[in-house]
């Protein structure tokens, strides 16, 4: 019940973020979507994800407001709104139709299907000694994935530092 309230709140905030004229209000509405997502993670009993989502959302909001909002963007308004709306609604309908057939095949919510995941849940504590099972999975059993994620972040930071450096910039 709370989850559906939160989901409808997030949908409303997303619609506001798209439709509102002011850029600052739009960014704040995006922040409301992120806050709703964080609370949804809390309701689904995933506090690790909730903490991460909350702090990353705050950081993204600060970066969006402080570092990019000075340049005012032009609102694009052309006369093709009928074609745009029709194609959007058509694609949403196609997506929902495929999702209806795909979601019927999924197991029930919370039911584990993989034997590997069951092994992690049952013997994670004695194999790694970590009481937070999320940490034991992402840093021990699936450490290779975390290495890939860290590489992505490293590449992103190096890219930003290389593009926006001052040394060697020709005025």
């Amino acid at each position, binding site marked *: 019940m709370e989850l559906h309230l939160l989901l409808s709140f997030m949908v409303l905030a997303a619609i506001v973020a798209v439709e509102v004229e002011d850029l600052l209000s739009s960014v704040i509405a995006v922040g409301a979507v992120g806050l709703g997502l964080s609370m949804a993670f809390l309701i689904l009993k995933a506090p690790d994800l909730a903490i991460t989502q909350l702090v990353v959302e705050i*950081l993204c909001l600060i*970066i969006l407001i402080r570092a990019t909002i000075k340049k005012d963007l032009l609102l694009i308004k052309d006369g093709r709104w009928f074609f745009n709306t029709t194609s959007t609604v058509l694609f949403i309908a196609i997506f929902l139709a495929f999702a209806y057939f795909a979601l019927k095949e999924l197991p029930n919510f919370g039911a584990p299907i993989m034997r590997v995941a069951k092994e992690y849940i049952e013997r994670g504590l004695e194999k*790694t000694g970590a009481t*937070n099972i999320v940490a034991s999975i992402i840093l*021990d059993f699936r450490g290779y994935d975390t290495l890939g994620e860290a590489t992505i972040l*490293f590449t992103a930071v190096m890219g*930003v530092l290389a593009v*926006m450096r001052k040394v060697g910039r020709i005025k």
Partner: protein
Amino acid sequence: MKNKEVGMTLIVKTITRLTVGLILLYGIYIVLHGHLSPGGGFAGGVIIALSFIHLMLAFGKEVALRKLSESWASIFESLGAIMFLSIAVLGFIGGYFFLNFFIQKGKPFELFSAGIIPLCNIAISLKVGAGLFAIFAVLILFNKSGDK
């Protein structure tokens, strides 16, 4: 502060002076207890970066860059990456990549337990915190230099 024009108003500066240390401590707590309670290296690193960003928003960029300059942030980020990768490679002592190579795992619910997981958390937090702070600082500096 000597130059009152830089940064935000006096109220914001006073509150920031009280809270920024607590935010940094909370980030360190989340990192160090990542294997015991919810949190972990990524979230803790972002909180550490947010404390420096908080300082930069309230006091202007000079104060924050004196605490942690842009090049030092880059060095810390690379250090975290090297540390994480070397922990992974050290697993070859026992045979395979990312082996939890401590023989004694320690008792559960203790701070020094779980083998390599706290070390990995510290490495990831260094990487994420310094990296995100470097991105923010570079964006701010780029904006300021672009105005002229």
